[in-house]
């Protein structure tokens, strides 16, 4: 009885988690990587952190799940400073997708996707159901792909599995670091559409790092433009397209 109740509670979607940067700076061996960033991402929004290589966008992303800690200022997730979260707990509530997928090569697709639910000790039937549901949604049906190893998948398939793994435990927040950066344009478009679909189904806040302005405009509800560690622009995609900032215009130039 209690068990059944608990199981239900596990599978409820988490509340989407808001993200806030309060005057955040980050120094790496004395060199400033991020300079006094302040911004807010309301729960349920998708922030695109846009910038060139070396602009500090990946660093900003890693501050959100505590892979890095700010040199000064505060990062808040769900209204609570990251420094006050139990990091293991925060990370289990935060999906994370990176360019090289980072799937465990010795785990099957099924076990990879089910990893965080298993860390959270979800009951086996529920884990299985969730894994099946996600694999169906990303177009890699369980019967065919569940028992394969990541090494037996194409790059695009691996990235899809990476996204499914990040979503498995119904996180309130998802962090994506150029997840589609290494894919061919066609697969990339497919995965972008799929991500939009998934976003509608799963109530979730996302922070998505990219250097691709088209991707930013397509996926973002909010865009933050980073230039050498400074936040040059922060606002809606429509506002971004009207932006007069130097770096913003350089990025918009790409669209012409």
């Amino acid at each position: 009885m209690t068990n059944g109740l608990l199981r239900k509670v596990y599978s409820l979607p988490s509340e989407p988690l808001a993200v806030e940067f309060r005057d955040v700076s980050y120094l790496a061996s004395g060199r400033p990587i991020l300079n006094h960033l302040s911004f807010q991402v309301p729960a349920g929004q998708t922030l695109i952190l846009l910038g060139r290589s070396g602009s500090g966008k990946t660093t900003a992303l890693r501050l959100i799940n505590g892979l890095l800690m700010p040199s000064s200022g505060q990062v808040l997730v769900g209204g609570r400073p990251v420094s006050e979260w139990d990091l293991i707990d925060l990370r289990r509530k935060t999906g994370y997708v990176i360019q090289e997928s980072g799937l465990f090569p010795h785990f099957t697709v099924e076990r990879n996707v089910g990893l965080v639910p298993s860390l959270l000790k979800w009951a086996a039937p529920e884990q299985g159901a969730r894994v099946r549901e996600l694999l169906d949604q990303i177009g890699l049906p369980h019967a065919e792909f569940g028992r394969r190893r990541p090494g037996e998948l194409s790059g695009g398939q691996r990235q899809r599995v990476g996204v499914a793994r990040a979503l498995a435990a119904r996180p309130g927040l998802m962090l994506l670091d150029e997840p589609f950066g290494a894919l061919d344009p066609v697969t990339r478009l497919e995965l972008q559409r799929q991500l939009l679909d998934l976003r509608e189904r799963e109530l979730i806040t996302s922070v998505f790092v990219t250097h691709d302005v088209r991707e930013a405009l397509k996926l973002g509800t909010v865009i933050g433009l980073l230039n050498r560690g400074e936040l040059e622009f922060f606002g809606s995609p429509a506002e971004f397209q009207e932006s007069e900032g130097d770096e913003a215009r350089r990025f918009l130039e790409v669209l012409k």
Partner: protein
Amino acid sequence: MIPHGMLEDLGELSLEHLEMVFIAMLAAAAIAIPGAILLSRKPRISRWGLGFANILQTVPSLALFGFLIPIPFLGVGKATAVVALTLYALLPILRNTLVGITGVDAAVRESAVAMGMTPGQILWQVELPLGAKAILAGVRIATVTTIGTATIAAAIGAGGLGVFIFRGIAEFDTVQILAGAIPAALMALLADELLGWVERRVA
């Protein structure tokens, strides 16, 4: 041709030989695998750890057996031999375990942390399984060398197949030398095959 009693001796000395190697390997693995795990967490110390094991390896084996004799509680015999063999076996296991663990793909390690795995979970579910092949290769290399080196143990009265070899040398008796050398070589080949098989099974 084969002197009377040699076959009985052969069985006994082979067992003695195996026993020394087996205990030494267990001890070496028990020290070197956890040691390498610790070293993998402290890159700055890991150079020192490896350096120390490297130095042990460069001490000529006969000298190492000799050095240990004056140490209290060891003296002449099996205990000293086992300690010396253990010290010798440390380096290959230590080095291979370190390579296996630190060789885990950076993206895999990063995702493991980012998904909220604890350091213990990362060790048992990611680092050790992915490093297993390298670790086992280290154990295999160490075992094969130790079987050879253990023949020298007879020089300090520890027994084993080296007894035949040393006696054969003293008596200019080739048959006795071969009676020690051939079984030792076969034992090494067999161990290599067996552990190689385990290694392939794991991969």
